[in-house]
């Protein structure tokens, strides 16, 4: 249950009780919704691949909401079911197995076992999302192997326990193949436990709708920003190592909505953010000044 603070306007959730209660805005690109639904029905783990800011996390939020709704419809006899929690773990190179599975904590003269987020997801039957999974150490990633195949179980070494996952549990991992070095690639033994849904930046027409909705700007402005995104992405591989994300275009739209002149907003959100090369910056500014008056 969300706990609302009296002094500050924030919400706190226990991680396995974080439910997506409002439908997130998501526009499908191809058949990713169908694919995910099928994978969930068969409890097949999913790998989401794609450039930064292209909507991987939003897609998962949307799918979690959708799966929860379906679960509700199925379990109409037990209306108290809250749905499927979404448990997100941001991976980094210092993430240890204990951080994922759990550890003993001292409590007075005794110790108390505290489940890690992965264990909590397995027990609660949530969707566990390991974001940027290649950032985690290889010995840590191996932990998820038994969870990601037919066994669907988690081995808790310190407790000597084998935990079988709840029926609604699902493992989802993500990474951006673009900026990972060869050293940080996923091991094949890990990759081959997941089906992979690949995301790209949305086409101009869809991106325009996303920008309009997310930033609350009119279609004309959203269309121009989507056009800018398309033009900047034309430079992929040539002059930019990483192209502009939909997220940055939304930021530009929000700045414009707040009264920042369009050219200035695009400069700070869409030019400087993606490159330090002054020559490329100059060219991108010419693109910005062509699209915006």
């Amino acid at each position: 249950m969300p706990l609302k603070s009296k002094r500050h306007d924030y919400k706190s959730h226990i991680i396995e009780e974080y439910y997506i209660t409002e439908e997130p805005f998501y526009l499908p690109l191809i058949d990713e919704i169908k694919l995910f639904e099928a994978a969930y029905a068969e409890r097949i783990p999913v790998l989401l691949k794609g450039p930064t800011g292209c909507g991987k996390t939003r897609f998962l939020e949307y799918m979690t909401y959708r799966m929860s709704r379906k679960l509700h419809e199925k379990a109409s006899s037990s209306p108290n079911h809250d749905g499927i929690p979404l448990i997100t773990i941001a991976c980094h190179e210092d993430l240890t197995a204990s951080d994922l599975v759990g550890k003993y904590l001292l409590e007075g003269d005794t110790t108390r076992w505290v489940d890690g987020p992965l264990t909590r997801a397995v027990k609660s039957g949530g969707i566990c999302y390991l974001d940027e999974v290649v950032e985690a150490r290889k010995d840590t990633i191996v932990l998820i192997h038994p969870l990601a195949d037919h066994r669907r179980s988690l081995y808790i070494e310190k407790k000597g326990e084998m935990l079988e996952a709840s029926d609604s549990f699902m493992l989802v991992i993500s990474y951006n193949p673009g900026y990972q070095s060869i050293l940080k690639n996923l091991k094949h033994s890990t990759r081959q436990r997941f089906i992979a849904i690949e995301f790209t930046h949305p086409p101009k027409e869809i991106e325009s709708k996303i920008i309009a909705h997310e930033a609350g700007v009119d279609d004309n402005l959203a269309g121009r920003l989507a056009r800018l995104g398309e033009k900047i992405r034309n430079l992929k591989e040539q002059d930019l190592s990483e192209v502009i994300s939909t997220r940055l275009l939304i930021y530009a739209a929000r700045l414009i909505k707040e009264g920042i002149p369009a050219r200035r907003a695009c400069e700070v959100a869409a030019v400087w953010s993606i490159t330090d090369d002054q020559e490329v910056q100059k060219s991108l500014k010419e693109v910005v000044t062509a699209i915006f008056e």
Partner: protein
Amino acid sequence: MSEIVSNREQPKGTVDTYFGIEFASIEPVMLVYCMAMTGKEVEISTGKDSVISLRNNWWRQITSGNPPDGHINVSVPATFMDYASYDDNFGWYKSFLTQQLGHVEFGSSDFDFDKDSSLFENLRSGMRPENGCTESSYYRYFSLFDDRLLATRIFVAIENARINYLVKFFYPGVKYYYQRMQEGTLLALAQLPGMTLRRAFCELLDGLEFDAVLAANIDALYEPLSEARAVLDRLFSPSAAVEDSAEAAIRVYYIAKKIPKNLFVSSVEGYASEHREPDFSEMDGQEFMGNFNVGQMKLDMEMRAGTGPKSTMPMTAEDLKKLADQKIGITDIQDAQFLSSTGLSAADLPRGVHVYQFSQSKFQQVDRYQPGDPKSSIMAEEGEKLFYYDEWDFRTRRYIGEWCCVREKVLGEGSSYFYEKTLESRKSLAAELKRQFEKLPAELLYKAKNLDDGDEFDLDLVIGELMDKKAGQTPSGKVYWKKKKIQRDVAVAFLLDMSGSTADLINKSRPTMEYDESIKYDFMKFVMQPRRRIIDLEKESIVLLIHAIETLGDNYGIYGFSGHGRSKVQFLIIKDLNESLTEKIKRRVDMIAPIHGTRMGPAIRHAVTKLDACGSSLKLLFLVSDGYPQDSLYGYDDDDKEYAIHDTKMALIEASKKNITPFCLTVDSAGNDYLRTMCNDIGYEVLDDIEMLPHRLPMLYKKLSG
């Protein structure tokens, strides 16, 4: 903080007229702009044709069978100075390019005869094409008309109008300059008297979107122009496609056909003429209305229509040249037109033909692609090994293959006196550097955790173990940490600038008297020391560096470089990688001396090749220079500083891509001006006080390798 406003930075090297622009000076920015706008490789050629003729380059490409996708060729004037400010002239160039790119983005070449128009009722289906579906869509389309030249003229005007509308709609930022550019290319009304009415109608189509054309109320043309304007107004929609232009052109064609052929414009706004100009259909393949080379068009149409060679075969350069010699419809054909009309790219051309060759700019005087393979004419001198490297041409954004010849040679030997004397005269600094370097191994320790045994307990691990123990778990016992040495595995190449400019005297250096104990007579023991040059300080730095670096055992190479044209880039080995320090090397240091220019790019590439062959885990490249890169014809001329800087920049980027860390150290106090461009994300340092070089160079190395 800079801001996107109109005050663009005016690049150096523009034409004499202060506000005019030589396209070459803005080409790098515009090339990336074009690539962003189209998503394709764009080649921009500069031509001396009229602006109107250059504007219709898109149509020439279609009629000549040039593939519309893949490689894109656009043409601009080599210089532009019509306006009184730099921004205005830049805006014109940008608009002009945006217009040509608009034909790519909005699909002028994607015409599909069988595709319906979304804005007009399809009249094409009611007209009878001469040939079957095997011909190109454009050929089938123009076969619908009795007067194909008139139809072509009208279609091109209508399609230009569609593109103008779409560009201004989707790129409102260029609208102001775009409109000025359009107005600048319109026919002056004063030129109309004497023309046939039909020809005047066609000419006025180009500016029909402007109200002024209708307002001129020209003789009997007001009504047909109003009708044509109504067609254009229907066409002006953000969703208009080339098929809509084709339908609009059919309607305007029938309007034009109704105009009497033999009547002339007598007067316009007070301008009158008795002169009678021929109607275009009477003309015999010469210039058509100023906007169109009808000869070219007619010929192209014939070739494409099957009356000439098979229409699917684009004309070759040889075909065109032959036709030009026979004076069939084409006059004054130049090589550049072959480029645009045959689909050949610059890379396909033999050396000696270059896209800049007929440019009005200063670059035309330099034939960079001299005939003859450089390899065949270059001979290695004694002791030299030859290596060929590409050079990066930032203007065309291409490498010129095997353009530079690097001559690798072991530097001759002099005396070891300089080496010994430097260590003696700088003994305190040498000792200090050595002491600093000796510290390095200690600094390369790391903390290994989770060990059964080690230097100390790791508190976090101990607490974890205690908790496990209390919880009834078997402790692992791995609660220690210890310092572990990381094996130093560094390879470094020092590239020393040995250009002629290093012979410059150091400003602060004044003739000094020094005491020399070795001299026998007391009164002569104070001797005048010669004034020092930049190269002397470089040599001193190298001596101190060698002295210090030897304590580390790193694999290091020291090389000098200089250039004397692309075929003579000298790469002199003072100490090669994997070579041990011997007396020979000390004697080579003595021979470090100023030679010629500073061709950095190939020298860096050669050093990178050497470093790349080392198996070390950390590879460094140190470039020590006294100024910006400059060499004989290092670029489009001897003063092409930008070219040299960009080639060097690209060579440094290539090094980074091979996991080599480059670093530039310059003693040129003006270095910040160009190093910012040259090094971008690569480390560099400008040494304000050149006297600091012997101290700074080793310390920088220590910092980078540590």
